[in-house]
């Protein structure tokens, strides 16, 4: 079976997000103050797997071995 997995990689809670801070400042300059702002990165990956669970496991392997750095990142996987 072919599956599409959506992976979202974000900084762990409490990690400094300099990019988010800069974006938040820019929004404020546009007259749009924000209470909070965080960034994340999304990957859409097509892969072949026997079951949805196997597809999710494959996606987890992508995260653990390359896409995320466990020191600073958390990730979420959604099998479409």
């Amino acid at each position, binding site marked *: 079976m072919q599956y599409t997995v959506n992976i979202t990689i974000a900084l762990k809670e409490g990690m*400094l997000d300099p*990019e988010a801070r800069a974006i938040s400042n820019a929004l404020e300059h546009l007259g749009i103050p924000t209470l909070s702002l965080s960034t994340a990165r999304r990957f859409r990956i097509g892969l072949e797997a026997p079951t949805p669970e196997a597809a999710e496991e494959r996606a987890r392997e992508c995260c653990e071995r390359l896409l995320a750095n466990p*020191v600073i990142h958390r990730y979420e996987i959604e099998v479409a």
Partner: protein
Amino acid sequence: MRFAVIRFGGSNCDLDTVHVLGDVLGVPTDLVWYRDGLRRGYDAVVLPGGFSYGDYLRAGAIAARTPIMADVIRHVRAGGLVLGICNGAQIGAESGLVPGVFTQNEVPRFICRPTHLRVETAESPFTLLFKRGEVIRLPVAHGEGRYVAPPEVVARLNRERRVAFRYCDADGQVTADANPNGSVEGIAGVLSENRNVLVMMPHPERASELVLGSEDGRRIFESMIAHCCRSGKV
């Protein structure tokens, strides 16, 4: 004695490093293309600065997963020296040669300027020609140089004297103002558990000749050479 400098796609300090090792210090040095692997034994391997793979995903993340890094890890396990400079430091951390990660600067912009560093330990193959507490001057040039590690890891690095350098002011005080990128505790260079890997964000190869304004970086390479001589690998 023979050193290798690994060139990844996007390395750009590789030739500077080969120049310092080969032309300035007279060490036979091979420039090794990453696809060729390490085909012979080396006393030391340098992961040079640059922008391997355009810093895609995270600085150093892609280069860290190339097959030549398996050769580098074998070299480290056999006791060989590895020096990771700037992008090489990011690659070293992404490879797990040292704990932690170098990520986006606290203020998210590229910094290129001289910094003062306090030498935190002379007990390593990379710093044996320095005195502990000595202040040296090396340039930094990075956008992702902020060292991050969990508190327990930082505590262990401190306990085991594995922080090689901290950013400091001209008097050797480690202050927030002297910290260019927001690194935890001003950490600029980290040693591996067996002390045969040093990763550092500042560029010693850009401060190895008087004409460039500082020769402090040269002593890091000279320390490595002295260490190899003492180990009988002349």
